[in-house]
């Protein structure tokens, strides 16, 4: 087969790529531009930690603080903090009522706001149906009526100090442990008399007078008949089974109701001048350790554990 030999020898044409060059250059320029634009658009730290700008974390961190925390307040106001921490408001941070403290710490001339109106207190203590029943809530109109407060512009802080509203001691180790649920026999043994009123339902039977009928009967003979047991014996629930009873014997607690003030009317509880009362009645100098119940236990209820009639002179 002489086919190969029949093909005439043609001059070898080298492939011509010149037409590709402009396209190539345009492509390279475009890629370069795209890379440049990409570099320009994508922030430097993008992708450092993930699909976001790493420096954004710095931005988020770099923000001033307004709230400084109670420890900072205690550095200067330790005396107030000590009083505050042991009373009913002990768990409430300073800045919750007084607002953020940064500016005051930087410049002492900038004073902290002191909320003193009734509305300020009612922010937390207004009676609302959605508030937990265990939280102290006040219907102020009913409260005023009960105490004979005639002036409706009276603020809570005129009787209750915001730092120690109830003059109680929150140290629960000192408070008496009181069970919520007894053993069956605690109530049912010795109570077989059919005339004993039966409770409608068990959770509701644990009213104070059910177990302490003698004290309740004694209380009902006194002028404190309308005062609920838990008004003075504050019950702090600890768990499903028990709680602690804080018996408030601080004279200032009694004075919350009984101190004479211009805004109270005679329709309320008997009022006394304080601290002149002790001097006027017993001719003594006021003693913070003295409790009103030292003399007035008969006005409260029968207190078998206390020795009656201890004179101030002792």
């Amino acid at each position, binding site marked *: 087969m002489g086919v190969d030999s029949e093909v005439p020898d043609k001059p070898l044409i080298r492939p011509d790529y010149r037409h590709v060059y402009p396209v190539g250059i345009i492509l390279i320029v475009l890629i370069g531009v795209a890379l440049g634009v990409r570099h320009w658009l994508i922030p430097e730290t993008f992708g450092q930690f993930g699909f976001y700008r790493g420096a954004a974390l710095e931005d988020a961190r770099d923000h001033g603080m307004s709230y400084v925390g109670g420890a900072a307040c205690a550095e200067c106001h330790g005396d107030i903090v000590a009083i505050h921490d042991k009373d009913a408001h002990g768990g409430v941070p300073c*800045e919750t009522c007084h607002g953020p403290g940064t500016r005051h710490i930087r410049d002492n001339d900038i004073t902290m706001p002191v909320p003193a109106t009734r509305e300020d207190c009612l922010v937390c203590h207004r009676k609302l149906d959605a508030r937990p029943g265990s939280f102290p809530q006040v219907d102020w109109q009913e409260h005023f009526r009960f105490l004979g407060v005639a002036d409706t512009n009276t603020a809570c802080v005129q009787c209750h100090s915001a730092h120690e509203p109830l003059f109680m001691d929150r140290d629960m180790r000192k408070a008496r442990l009181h069970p919520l649920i007894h053993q069956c026999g605690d109530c049912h043994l010795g109570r077989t008399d059919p005339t004993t009123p039966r409770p409608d339902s068990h959770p509701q039977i644990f009213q104070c007078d059910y177990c302490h009928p003698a004290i309740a009967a004694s209380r009902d003979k006194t002028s404190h008949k309308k005062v609920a047991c838990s008004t003075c014996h504050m019950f702090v629930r600890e768990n499903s089974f028990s709680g602690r009873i804080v018996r408030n014997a601080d004279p200032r607690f009694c004075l919350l109701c009984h101190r004479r003030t211009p805004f109270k009317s005679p329709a309320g509880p008997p009022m006394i001048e304080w601290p002149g009362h002790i001097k006027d009645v017993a001719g003594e100098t006021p003693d913070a350790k003295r409790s009103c119940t030292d003399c007035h236990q008969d006005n409260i209820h029968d207190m078998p554990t206390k020795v009656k009639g201890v004179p101030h002179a002792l």
Partner: protein
Amino acid sequence: MHCDSAMSRREMLRRLVAGASGCLLVSVLPSLAGESEKNSKGRKPLYAYAVDTARCIGCCACMRACKAENEVPDGRFRTWIERYRVRANGEVLVDAVIDDGFVFKDDKVPDAVKAFFVPKLCNHCEKSACSQVCPVGATYTSPEGVVLVDQKRCIGCGYCVQACPYGTRYIHPVKHVADKCTLCYHRIMRGMQPACVQSCPRGVRIFGDLNDPESQISMALKQRRFRLLKPEMGTHPRCYYLDLDNEVI
């Protein structure tokens, strides 16, 4: 011949063992290095949040604190409190404080059989819908598990506001970018508590490190019953609601 073959087998075994241990070393070394890095920095935190709903009294101290701490614009909220009231016929009434007075009105629902407050905030989801829809990578999850917005990057398109199943985002009326709860990132990175946690008078809000088994939040989640909001959305929220009623959505 027999001897040669034994030697070569021994040699082969030696090489095999050497090769295997070499491979093992190579595979273990990076993780060893990682471990040592982790240990030197201490355990890496994973921050989360819990809300003890049964304790909330609806005083709105958290909302006031959040506003003051983060300069939240008027009429917008990074955290808020909802009041749920369920009537005898099963109807659920929900309201919230929508002005800046921060006080719930004393309007009683006469036949309400149960009522309670529920604080709400960004759930800082593990698989956050907001991060997934962001077209520019402005919403992201920090290494500590906090979902944040890069406000320099955000273009204010509002996709994330629509995507969030919990309604926790808004467009900032002045900056025109998405804004939301940062868990007070600037505070927690300095070892402080978020402002809402710091100011709560009832200890309703619990913040802490899930990687620390002794932290208050870890203990609360071990010991208490809790619920997540809208778990069916698959966002894996890191905001845990203790003792929450089923009515809450």
